[in-house]
């Protein structure tokens, strides 16, 4: 079995941000020790149920706020992982952290435990914007956190930024970008604020207390960012992701590349998603339900663990459609014709002739016979491209 990426979901937060619709919970940190034990138990059970020994190529602690866990807790999880999966080829262990929850000692502990990549939720350098987002940290906390991480020895740091925040203008956004670049991160993620259904932010916009973000302004902000980051030596390799070069190496996130290349990954923790052996899984979301499922339940057929509530077997056609939808997000490498042919035994052109022709004519994709990738405009209008590749019937000669 090919090595898998491992995602570990840490659903705890100090407070819940108004825009967030992830599976996170505030004020239940007393469950953390039990949760860490449950994670370990889930890992053991899934590994035991695997048809062959598992190898991990990346590990990612996502949340929520994984930095709320202590370094012994992180260490406990990683030790459990390495005794159940072969991690000898694992080059990247990422952890998401909120500025303001970490100091040098804690970070050194994480590094000691094995974490080698830190992803900091900087979001903005403007206090008013941070407050609209309900973020608990101050701009200064980011500088402090990065400095602490560097001192502790982290050589791979990523910063998350959000644009399209209500009230944000070009000036403020450029200030945020410059502040981020001054910290010399290896990696940047720029996410457009999406007003998700059922979030407090949506409610605030509905009742008029917060101004609705403007799509056209967001487009302007992003375009300006592209230019600035390009000047600063960053390479855009995915719709929202940018990597710097260190020693000739592009510092991409190997873990996230696994998703976009539609390669296998296992998800552990409440609400975590996994995909391996042509099966997509999703765990139960609430923490108590997860704890009891893992404590009392048994692993189901691999890769479904004891807490899996959705288990979906993928057809070959679905895998192909998802490979297109995900692979096209990779603005740099795109989808390689040869790689596609090797994986599926069919050429891209034979399966999607109409789509390729149509999207090329609209100037949304570039196709040279070897690689299919988004054009500059296509990368702004990605959905217009992706939706051409989902929900189609397989061609009649597809078996």
């Amino acid at each position: 079995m090919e090595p898998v990426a491992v995602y570990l979901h840490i659903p705890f937060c100090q407070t819940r941000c108004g825009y967030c619709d992830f599976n996170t919970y505030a004020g239940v940190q007393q469950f953390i020790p039990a949760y860490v034990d449950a994670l370990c138990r889930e890992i053991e059970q899934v590994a035991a149920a695997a048809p062959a020994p598992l190898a991990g190529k990346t590990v990612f602690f996502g949340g929520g706020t994984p930095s709320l866990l202590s370094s012994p807790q992180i260490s406990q999880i990683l030790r459990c992982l390495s005794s159940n999966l072969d991690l000898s080829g694992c080059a990247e262990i990422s952890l998401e952290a909120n500025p303001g929850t970490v100091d040098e000692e804690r970070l050194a502990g994480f590094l000691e435990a094995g974490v080698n990549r830190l992803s900091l939720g900087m979001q903005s350098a403007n206090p008013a914007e941070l407050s609209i987002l309900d973020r608990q940290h101050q701009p200064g906390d980011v500088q402090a956190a990065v400095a602490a991480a560097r001192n502790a020895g982290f050589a791979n740091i990523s910063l998350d930024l959000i644009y399209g925040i209500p009230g944000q203008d070009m000036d403020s956004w450029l200030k945020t970008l410059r502040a981020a670049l001054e910290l010399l991160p290896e990696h940047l993620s720029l996410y457009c604020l999406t007003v998700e259904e059922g979030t407090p932010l949506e409610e605030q916009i509905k009742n008029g207390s917060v101004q609705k973000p403007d799509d056209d302004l967001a487009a302007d902000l992003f375009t300006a960012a592209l230019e600035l980051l390009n000047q600063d030596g960053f390479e855009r390799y995915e719709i929202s992701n940018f990597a710097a070069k260190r020693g000739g190496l592009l510092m991409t996130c190997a873990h996230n590349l696994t998703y976009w290349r539609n390669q296998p990954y296992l998800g552990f923790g409440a609400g975590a998603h996994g995909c391996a052996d042509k099966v997509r899984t999703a765990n139960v979301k609430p923490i108590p339900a997860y704890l009891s499922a893992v404590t009392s339940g048994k692993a189901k057929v691999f890769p479904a663990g004891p807490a899996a509530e959705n288990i979906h077997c993928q057809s070959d056609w679905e895998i192909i459609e998802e490979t297109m939808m995900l692979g096209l997000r990779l603005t740099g490498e795109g989808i390689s014709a040869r790689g596609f042919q090797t994986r599926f035994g069919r050429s891209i052109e034979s399966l999607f002739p109409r789509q390729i022709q149509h999207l090329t004519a609209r100037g949304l994709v570039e196709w040279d016979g070897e690689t299919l990738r988004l054009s500059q405009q296509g990368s702004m209008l990605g959905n217009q491209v992706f939706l051409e590749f989902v929900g189609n019937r397989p061609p009649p000669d597809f078996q």
Partner: protein
Amino acid sequence: MRTDKIRNFCIIAHIDHGKSTLADRLLQMTGTISDREMTEQVLDSMDLEREKGVTIKASAVRMLYSAKDGESYELNLIDTPGHVDFNYEVSRALEACEGAVLVVDATQGIEAQTLANLYLAIDSNLTVLPVINKIDLPSARPDEVADEVGSLLGFPPEEILRISAKEGINIDQVLEAVVRHIPPPRGDENEPLTALIFDSHYDPYKGVVAYIRVMQGSIRAADTLRLMAAQTDVKPVEIGIFSPNMKPTERLTVGDVGYVATGLKTVQECRVGDTFTSAATPAKAPLPGYRHPKPMVFAGIYPVENDDYSDLKDALEKLQLNDASLVFVPEKSQALNFGFRCGFLGLFHMEIIQERLEREYDLDIIVTAPSVEYEVVTLDGAVSRIDSPAQLPDEAIIQEIREPWMNLQIFTPTEFYGTVMDLVTKRRGSYKSQEYPAPNRVQLNFEIPLSELIVDFFDDLKSRTKGYASMDYSFLEYRPGNLVRLEIMVGGEPVDALTAIVHKEDAYHKGQRLVTKLKDIIPRQQFDVAVQAASGGRIISRANVRAMRKDVLAKCYGGDITRKKKLLEKQKKGKRRMKMVGSVEIPQEAFMAVLRLEED
């Protein structure tokens, strides 16, 4: 069975007053159908009918009933369609009867179609047997309703039957009353055959099955029959009765209700209202009242994907097999490509066809705004009929445009008098007269252009009167109107399917509203799209749909691909309902937007 032991009758009622439920009970009570076989409302066989709660097609069924006088009777129940669009079919079904059971809801009382159907029944010289239904409901007011009905019919209120079809209360009294009060059929078995076709359906094995009532003479299975209006001879595949399913017989005689399986391929060859006679000894004259029902409302139906054109054609042909009133001819629109101009009896008929195409045939279709048929007089004096605004000739050569006007009856509680008057005058209607057929109820008679009726008029009436008013309408005449063409351009291209014919005084205002609406309805595209309205060679309004600059899902959170995919599939579904016009995607709603200009 001797003719004097036959009773042919129908049940007439306003929508939802319980006609079908009563029919069900009669079938059960006479043992025509066992309780086990009893699916609710057997007579309405189409799903759509059940959902819309109305009967679209009539049917007939023979019941055998042992009456309290010790005699056995043959009761033929003829079910009639329950909507004004199908008035002609109703009138033919009534011709096949001697009596009508008039069902009136004990909670609602008399409604517009109670009256409309009653007048039709009286025109057909039927004996009317009033029945008050739903007496089990707490809000029932049977005494009041009996007084209303009694004074309307000149019938002693205390003799009016009070029943609950739903609960099976007093159903036996209905059967007894049918036998006692409705006269047996008249006619002479020895006369040359005349049999009225009052309905038909298409059967893949037996061809068109005509539902008939023998008025004079008799039919043997082996006879060659002649359709007098169509002037064709047919050798029946079989003849028979409905009990309730088709059951072949050797003979149908005067007074009988049954069927003739003709082997004909389309219902157009064997129309409702036509007369069967014997080819060997034909009758001198057909039965009176044959009419070729004319479509009143027209709309274009186009496949969303051009590739589906032939599937759409097949589907329309199949629907037409059973629906002689549906007409369609191929139509080419610059905007929508190849499709069909379809004619319907009314808006309700149009909705049924649209839904059946979508549901039963799984087609993605665009239906353009409905239009009436205009008469256009050109300067050379020539008169032509057009059923689509796109067909309107150059304004420079038009002398006059005439539009169809209707007689409109609205029946409403008197408290809504003002709002009804307001609705009709706003829509260019004019008041003619009023009647008070029941206490606190008024029937208002108007004349109104049909084009004003087909645009949500009924919905508007219902909402203004809290659902209490009902209406009926019939064709009056063509009248000249001050009408002009309102043209819409999207991305600089005129979109013929968005063209409308409007009253000149409204053109400016409607043009502006339409452009504003379209600007909101047409989603942002990859480039700027101009939306313009023009009338009389002048641009009267313009708006811009700005180019979409950003449309991309941000984060692939923790590998949750399913959710992303769902969002994309939803977005794609929305796109499926859009039509590429030039390089602009226009949603289905845009083609209907012209209808909804008075709202909000």
